[in-house]
């Protein structure tokens, strides 16, 4: 089959590789009909996530048709149309039974490797480095799906791929980011990053009853999408004024947002001054894996007693974490790779009911063979790119 493989920093290419095979009884093979490039794939592309190997197949947002099932998979049949969640989860361990699927205790066969980096292993993830298992990804014609009796959701109506594909990651991820803000009504929520996950965090915060949602980004076209499609009530373009903390305070009568969502992660770009320069130099020299500008400002801007919700991906260590602000303001930080399996059904219902059409983020549709162009366009935000969908 053909698959998009990582072959070094800033290099991906579509190559011929062997077809996937059933390796365990609970596996299924899916013929992929749609797949996407995630903002977090750019962290791999840019070379900031450790334990990538030449030849790794990328991609963790995909859907398709079941073409083969292992003996232990009785809930799926050949021909079923499924969306596959990006974390691989066994459904049996304590974490899975408490709906903490992205920290499944069994699905990462490189647990020992992850334990060294994070203190504990976390769930396996498709196409996302060897620290999360070394699983082949879904930017390909076919993929093997382990624990297929737990993860995939059957799509039993005729909704087009583009409306359900993002149940695999970015819609639930954005939703979890908003849910972690404990929205009860009347809140002001600030969202750092108006990329695809940020857009869904904004839309979800609105759905959950936030009164005001402030979108923060450096690209006007993304901020316009945040207002026109996701429902943001105000925006900050930090290219025009980099002092995000002061602007957020001013916009909230000095209080600061009740909760702040970091939908940026380890490669944030805003800010100048000594700390921003230090971050860039240290990350370039591989002395620090995570640039923390968005997270630092989220902590400084959040109102005392508020919540900082981190769904942007971090990979290692960052410097200058504002512990003083974090502690003295009595903040709560909530984090995590999304427990997608928990959100699949309720969010699928929202899509079916027409509460949201997640395809609004798509700006580019390319054949799989042009994956490399897709990565470049997405990385450099060319052609007002927000989301790239690939068709195998």
């Amino acid at each position, binding site marked *: 089959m053909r698959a998009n493989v990582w072959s070094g920093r800033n290099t991906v290419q579509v190559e011929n590789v*062997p077809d*996937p095979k059933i390796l365990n009884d609970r596996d299924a093979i899916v013929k992929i009909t749609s797949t996407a490039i995630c903002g977090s794939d750019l962290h791999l592309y840019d070379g900031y996530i450790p334990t990538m190997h030449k030849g790794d197949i990328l991609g963790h947002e995909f859907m398709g048709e079941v073409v083969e099932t292992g003996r232990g998979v009785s809930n799926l049949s050949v021909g079923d149309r499924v969306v596959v969640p990006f974390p*691989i989860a*066994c459904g049996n361990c304590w974490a899975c039974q408490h709906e903490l699927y992205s920290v499944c*205790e*069994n699905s990462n066969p490189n647990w020992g*490797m992850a334990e060294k980096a994070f203190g504990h292993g976390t769930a396996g993830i498709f196409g996302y480095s*060897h620290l999360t298992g*070394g699983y*082949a990804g879904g930017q390909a014609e076919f993929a093997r799906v382990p624990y297929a009796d737990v993860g995939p959701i059957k799509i039993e109506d005729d909704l087009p791929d583009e409306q359900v594909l993002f149940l695999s990651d970015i819609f639930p991820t954005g939703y979890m980011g908003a849910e972690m803000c404990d929205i009860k009504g009347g809140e002001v929520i600030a969202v750092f990053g108006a990329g695809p996950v940020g857009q869904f965090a904004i839309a979800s915060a609105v759905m959950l009853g936030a009164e005001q949602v402030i979108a923060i980004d450096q690209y006007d076209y993304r901020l316009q999408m945040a207002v026109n499609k996701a429902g943001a009530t105000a925006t900050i373009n930090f290219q025009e004024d980099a002092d995000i903390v002061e602007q957020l305070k001013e916009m909230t009568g000095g209080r600061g947002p009740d909760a702040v969502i970091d939908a940026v992660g380890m490669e944030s770009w805003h800010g100048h001054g000594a700390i921003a320069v230090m971050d860039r130099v240290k990350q370039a020299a591989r002395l620090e894996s995570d640039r923390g500008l968005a997270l630092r400002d989220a902590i400084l801007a959040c109102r005392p007693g508020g919540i900082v919700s981190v769904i942007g991906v971090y990979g290692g260590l960052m410097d200058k974490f504002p512990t003083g602000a974090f502690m003295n303001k009595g903040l709560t930080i909530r984090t995590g790779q999304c427990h997608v399996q928990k959100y699949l059904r309720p969010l699928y219902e929202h899509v079916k009911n027409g509460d949201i059409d997640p395809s609004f983020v798509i700006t580019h549709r390319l054949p799989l063979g042009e994956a490399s162009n897709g990565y470049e366009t997405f990385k450099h935000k060319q052609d007002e790119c927000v989301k790239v969908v690939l068709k195998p």
Partner: protein
Amino acid sequence: MSDKAAITINLPREEVQQRWTSSAPEIDGDVTFKDAPGDRGTEIHVALGSGGGPIDKLRGTVPLAKAKDQLRRFKQQVETGEIPRSEGTPEGESVGRKFKQRPAQPLEESELEKAGVR
């Protein structure tokens, strides 16, 4: 120096002990079982005799590293019914694979048997 390792299995103690006895993981040390607090299942604690030298450590042949693999594989097998395999680590958790990953792309037919798939 005594090396210790521990893992928690999401099953009642009686069942864990029974499965341990019938599968007999190759661990050379003292093994004790203990109820974990609340609904957290059963703790398995292993105390080993010696730790191995630095070369062993690199090769992944130290008893502690091997014991940790065994504990993890036991947990995976009894909780999920299988040892999860990725394309990078097709044999499932093993300390030796940490240093020699396959690329994360499907195996050739010829590799399946070696990985223990068939």
